[in-house]
């Protein structure tokens, strides 16, 4: 379908640009604040772009437009949850976290609690969420690159995953937060520009009449008007409806608990700039999801739902195929150029997101586990950065190995799981810590492990892992799916909050309560918060 030479060339251009940025950034990185937080020198607009870059993964770019092209309206439901979720970050988390922490999610808990248990718990959930998310992206990268370059060879797929992994290790170990942030910025600009171009070209095919595009999409989908209504993907049984509500909860509450999003707020000089970053992120992400609506319905209308599914059953190639169609169709020069362009944008997207995730995990392992749990803070900055680089290397290598083993897992499921764990394990302790004086170490530890274990446990006993219900279960022939829902959020999120509450009221920790006023003053006013580094 594609012009492999052109696509490969553009891929190499993306790789060359990002490597150049990384090397440039490495020359300006010296201490821990540079390595973990990019010196806290980014502007609101720059960080807004970087946050969008971290957030708009291949799962949203390819996955949502693909889901819309296959299931119509139901695909759009994802984008709404993903966007509304930013209000939690804006109103409750971003600014307070910026003022009360330093490098990792655990910092703001450790401010008033016992270091070892809370840092260990927060690090476990950080690495857990990031690994689920990382697997989703890398498995996606393997499939995507194989499809785009038309190599349907298991060996080449593995090589692609290893290549993506090697690049991500390079960005993170060499460039640190500064390099990774600039890679996100470049990726966000490429993604927004590429998406805008295809959106305009697609709308032009219908004389910019959205109603006409929707009508043709409904006709071409083979579903008629039902394609524009809720219910095609999630079905009509009560279980399916509760499952959907459960997913909707995880999406809206997960974002503000994603560690790789949270540590972005440390890269700016003040909490006010953190607020501006979220404003920009909401604007950019909102417009992006509006455009994916056009991409999805446009692809259904111009390429056809079945045609898209014949190339990839999940519909993940809807956007690239739409680009080819609006460029002049298969075999045309315009079509080949636009297809290669969108493929390169998707590739840049994957590279940037996996780098952000690896950096987050490595920071947490080095700063929380090694520096503060293992060495009790007795080490130099240079030592800590060295450990962070080694951790990035190890986590990257583990991610490559797991991705190669996990190639048959469903990507959308892994992303939804990452959001569910973030909402169940991270959000409760984050909110309790910022707003509840009585909250303490046992509460935080119970909330994190309770949310994490209930979430992963329910998934293990769900129809996604075993049994014949979904048709795509890992073990379709044996059945231990005692929990009927695929999405655990509706149970595990309240459970995380409940465990945090129970842990707190069954123990008394004077130190944590005594330090709460400090935390409160610091988080609301920024008095004593970490400042920017000036070189």
């Amino acid at each position, binding site marked *: 379908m594609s012009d492999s030479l052109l696509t490969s060339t553009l891929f190499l251009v993306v790789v060359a640009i990002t490597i150049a940025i990384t090397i440039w950034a490495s020359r300006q990185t010296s201490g821990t604040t540079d390595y973990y937080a990019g010196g806290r020198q980014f502007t609101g607009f720059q960080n807004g772009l970087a946050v969008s870059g971290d957030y708009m993964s291949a799962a949203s770019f390819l996955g949502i437009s693909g889901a819309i092209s296959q299931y119509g*309206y139901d695909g*759009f*439901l994802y984008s*709404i*949850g993903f*966007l*509304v979720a*930013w*209000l*939690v970050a*804006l*109103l*409750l988390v971003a600014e307070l976290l910026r003022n009360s922490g330093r490098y990792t999610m655990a910092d703001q808990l*450790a*401010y*008033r*609690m*016992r*270091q070892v248990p809370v840092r260990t718990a927060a690090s476990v959930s950080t690495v857990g969420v990031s690994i689920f998310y990382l697997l989703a992206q890398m498995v996606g990268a393997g499939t995507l690159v194989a499809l785009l370059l038309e190599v349907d060879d298991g060996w080449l797929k593995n090589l692609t995953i290893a290549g993506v992994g090697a690049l991500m290790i390079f960005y993170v170990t060499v460039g640190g937060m500064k390099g990774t942030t600039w890679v996100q910025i470049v990726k966000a600009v490429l993604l927004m520009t590429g998406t805008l171009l295809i959106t305009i070209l697609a709308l032009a095919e219908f004389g910019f009449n*959205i*109603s*006409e595009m*929707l*009508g043709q999409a*409904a006709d071409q989908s083979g579903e008629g*008007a039902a394609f*524009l*209504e*809720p*219910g095609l993907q*999630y079905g*009509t049984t009560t279980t399916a*409806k509760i499952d*959907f*509500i459960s997913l*909707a909860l995880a999406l*809206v509450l997960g974002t503000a608990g994603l560690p790789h999003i949270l540590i972005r707020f440390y890269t700016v000089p003040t909490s*006010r700039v953190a*607020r501006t970053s*979220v*404003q920009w992120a*909401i*604007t950019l992400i*909102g417009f992006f*999801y*509006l455009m994916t609506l056009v991409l999805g319905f446009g692809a259904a209308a111009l390429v056809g739902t079945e045609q898209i599914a014949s190339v990839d059953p999940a519909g993940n190639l809807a956007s690239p195929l739409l680009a080819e169609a609006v460029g002049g169709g298969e075999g045309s020069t315009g079509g080949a150029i636009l297809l290669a362009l969108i493929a390169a944008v998707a590739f840049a997207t994957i590279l940037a997101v996996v780098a952000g995730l690896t950096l987050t995990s490595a920071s947490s392992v080095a700063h929380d586990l090694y520096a503060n749990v293992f060495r009790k803070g007795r080490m130099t900055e240079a030592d800590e950065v060295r450990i962070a680089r080694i951790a990035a290397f190890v986590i990257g290598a583990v991610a490559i190995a797991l991705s190669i083993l996990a190639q048959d897992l469903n990507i959308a499921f892994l992303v939804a799981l990452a959001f569910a764990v973030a909402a169940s394990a991270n959000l409760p302790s984050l909110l309790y810590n910022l*707003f509840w004086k009585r909250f303490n170490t046992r509460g935080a530890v119970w909330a994190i492990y309770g949310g994490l274990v209930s979430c992963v446990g329910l998934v293990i006993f769900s129809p996604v892992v075993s049994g014949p219900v979904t048709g795509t279960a890992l073990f379709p022939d044996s059945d231990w799916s005692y929990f009927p829902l695929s999405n655990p959020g509706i149970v595990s999120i309240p459970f995380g909050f409940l465990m945090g509450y129970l842990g707190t009221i069954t123990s008394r920790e004077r*130190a*944590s309560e005594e*330090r709460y*006023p*400090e935390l*409160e*003053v*610091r988080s*609301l*006013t*920024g*008095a*004593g918060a970490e400042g920017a580094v000036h070189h």
Partner: protein
Amino acid sequence: MAEDVTTRQHEAYTRIHASEEFSLLRKRFRGFAFAGTVAFMAWYLLYVLLSSFAVDFMSTQVVGNINVALVLGLLQFASTFLLAVVYSKFANRRLDPIADELRNGYDKEIGR
């Protein structure tokens, strides 16, 4: 034990925490943030419930091929943009001046 602060820092934090300005800042912030969160969550959950349990209503045609479901979905986008802008205005006018004053006082007291 958690991150350490000096006695002077601790005293400064305690003084600020006890001040009327800080109580006002906290009251204003929590008032807006909690009310805003309840409002957008309720509005979002209403939308999710309508999408699951009121498919017929959602399928009503508004104009051309555009139905209620699409309009409500787009309204979720609009309300998100709106709340973000309103919060920002509110924070600039009603929160930042108090926070700045308290922080400057702290910096002076600690001597940075």
